[in-house]
């Protein structure tokens, strides 16, 4: 399954409160640890260029850091207000971006506010400065006790990479022999894209984080890692999305306060298992909103997602891949991610993909473990009724598809499909579910009122047989 040339006996993957070992059992040799990493709180001091905020947001998302504050030279805040914001943010890292010479005085003013607000913080935040040497010197004069480091312009790929490397170093908290989970997943996505000679998207949802990684066959990887999840960060999802946006995905009438209770309890109960169908539905709802907000943040940060949505291979990991039914994982992805073309969706069982990715991230020769293909998704928005031909071991099935259709064609053996309007003929070996034709359109329209929303959801859930019978 996973082979490595390195002297690593096993990989230990940390979850919320427990760890999993791959391969399982007692390790008789060196262990490589995969950790989610510490929360790194970053505040950006920004010059006047509006691109800086977006570039910084992109860098923070790629590095898995929490951007807790943006303070601009022209944001209209007073000196004291800026200092209070900085003190309350309690940053681990400050990134000062002043590429324009006209920003010098403003950025020094922000550095003074930083000293006024955070002079007694322990430990003092390091300051990364993306500006010329003179600006760096003036910031160093204003904040003599802080460690100042130079950073390339974060609007460039090299600058972003440098920022990401620095953020990850902080998240590791000087532990040398660890790999961050997002690093491991990026390495795994890169290896899979190279192997498949096709674009791959890896979607990972855990208790504390959500990652969307888009890898191209040429080795280019764009990763978005957000502190939104279905467990310890569940309350952050509600805080970001609002309770109603989470509640709308639950396929039964439920009062908002009772839902919030469940979210808060889950957030403070590491690795809790959803034993009831309602708790499972809540976990699925949280996963949808976590993915949706990670994507929305990426778009706001200027990341183009067209390539990711059109990627032919989609691999699910983490909690998303561990839902009891494959249809549950699939429905979450279709609702929240919404691939735009024909996509083969697979689930990576257990932690094997993360373990292989961790070894690959260390530069080891690794064969990626097999993933379980669950469905080919044919997403379309036909102007008029169109035919989709599905060929499998049983023969050919032709489905007429109209706008709003959402159906599953169960398949047996090798599968190929023909869709209208494209010459691409997606195919796969055995699929756990079959071919899913999704003509619901994007963005998904969910009626706001329960009387209309619940039947709509029930129809979608029934199409894929998502929940156990008692819940319907």
């Amino acid at each position, binding site marked *: 399954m996973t082979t490595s040339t390195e002297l690593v006996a096993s990989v230990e993957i940390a979850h919320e*409160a427990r760890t999993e070992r791959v391969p399982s059992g007692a390790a008789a040799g060196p262990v490589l640890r995969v950790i989610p990493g510490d929360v790194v709180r970053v505040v950006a001091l920004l010059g006047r260029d509006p691109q800086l905020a977006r570039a910084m947001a992109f860098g923070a998302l790629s590095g898995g850091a929490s951007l807790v504050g943006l303070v601009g030279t022209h944001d209209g805040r007073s000196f004291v207000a800026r200092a209070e914001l900085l003190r309350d943010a309690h940053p681990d890292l400050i990134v000062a971006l002043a590429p324009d010479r006209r920003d010098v005085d403003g950025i020094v003013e922000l550095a*003074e506010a930083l000293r006024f607000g955070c002079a007694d913080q322990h430990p003092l935040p390091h300051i990364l400065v993306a500006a010329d040497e003179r600006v760096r010197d003036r910031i160093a004069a204003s904040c003599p006790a802080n460690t100042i480091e130079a950073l390339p312009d974060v609007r460039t790929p090299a600058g972003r990479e440098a920022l990401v490397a620095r953020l990850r170093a902080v998240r590791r908290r000087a532990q040398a022999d660890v790999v961050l989970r997002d690093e491991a997943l990026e390495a795994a996505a890169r290896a899979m894209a190279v192997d498949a000679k096709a674009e791959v998207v890896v979607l990972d949802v855990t208790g504390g984080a959500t990652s969307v990684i888009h890898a191209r066959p040429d080795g280019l990887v764009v990763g978005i890692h957000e502190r939104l999840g279905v467990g310890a960060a569940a309350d952050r999802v509600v805080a970001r999305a609002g309770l109603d946006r989470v509640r709308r995905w639950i396929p039964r009438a439920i009062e908002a*306060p009772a839902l919030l209770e469940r979210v808060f309890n889950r957030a403070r109960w590491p690795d809790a298992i959803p034993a009831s169908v309602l708790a499972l539905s809540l976990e699925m709802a949280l996963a949808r909103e976590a993915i949706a907000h990670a994507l929305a943040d990426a778009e706001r940060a200027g990341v183009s997602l067209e390539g990711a949505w059109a990627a032919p291979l989609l691999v699910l990991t983490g909690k998303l891949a561990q839902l009891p039914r494959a249809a549950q994982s699939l429905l979450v992805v279709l609702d929240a991610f919404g691939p735009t073309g024909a996509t083969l969706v697979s689930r990576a069982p257990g932690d094997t993909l993360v373990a292989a990715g961790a070894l690959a991230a260390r530069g080891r020769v690794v064969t990626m473990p097999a993933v379980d293909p669950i469905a080919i998704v044919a997403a379309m928005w036909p102007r008029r009724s169109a035919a989709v031909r599905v060929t499998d071991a049983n023969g050919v099935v032709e489905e007429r598809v109209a706008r709003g259709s959402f159906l599953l064609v169960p398949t047996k053996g090798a599968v190929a499909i023909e869709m209208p309007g494209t010459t691409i003929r997606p195919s796969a070996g055995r699929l756990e579910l079959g071919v899913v034709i999704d003509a619901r359109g994007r963005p998904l329209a969910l009626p706001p009122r329960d009387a209309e929303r619940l039947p709509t959801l029930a129809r979608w859930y029934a199409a894929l047989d998502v929940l156990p019978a008692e819940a319907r």
Partner: protein
Amino acid sequence: MSWRYSRWSADHALPIGASERAAQGQEVHAGDVLAAGATYGTPVRVGGARRIGVAPDDLARVMRVPVGGGVERRTVIARTGRRFARAVSSPIAGRLIHQRADGDLYVAPVVGRWVVRSTLDGEVSRSDDGCVTVTGSAWALQGVAAYGPDAIGDIALAVDAPAAELHPSRIDVRLQGRILIAGARATAESITRAHACGVAAIVAGAAPAGGLRVVYGDEATASGANTGPDSPTVLCLIGFGSAPLPREVFMPLVALVGARAAVHTASARLFVFAPESAGDFARNAPSLALSDDWLGARPMDERLALAGVKRFASEIEAEAVSTADGPVPVANVLAFDAPRTPQT
């Protein structure tokens, strides 16, 4: 252990503008003022070193008002020369709050005052403008989340049983300044009524999450909410919704009624200032089980038996423990003192 007598330290973060604070090594009691200061309005930048013709590093030598000092309008802040004097004076009344690296100064008007009080009996182990830390011995109980400002008061029982809910009718002004023990659940109505009656804090097994949002706003999360001094204080010991207190937690609280105590919200701890010999409180931590639908938690029997791998209604198969109400996933059973935040 749920209850533990130990040496604890409590950090008290200070807002900007501290003007006086307890010195390191100073003995303090819970409720004593650790630091006091002012809140500032919009400051005014005043030309400093350049204006009086000195290097920024030399400005301190000629300043007549130290940074942090109060000034009136036209107060001379710094001055050089004798016959042909050059001076910097304050354009407004307030406080000289900051000296920049280039020698300029900020003067801000004072628009309010604040004080920060100790939540521990002990000794000040750190004191600077960012934080005052007090270290001292006390009985303590770790909760999962706390909301509102720190609170100090005497413990009072407001329920008859650990599984009882705190009823608003049990709260009146006679409980002013007390820390109420609220049983399994403290609703938003009880919290607001207690606050109106001057109750210092409520300690309960759980509080409804929706109710907490009503009281503290949408910023309240499962980790707590840091609010201003004018809001009520709530400490949730087990979770949210409803959570009866285990006997091992409740009985010592009954025994400690009348004892001086404090709720430190940053660490979500209840400190009780009673002697170590006050009782045999330090027992093994009881187990807690999260309900299947995550709506609350309940204490469990001391002796738990594994039931093997079970399939639950959600179709998840997991190791389970047997209970009278059916199997519970092992992952949903935690010791009272188990860490509630994920590892990093």
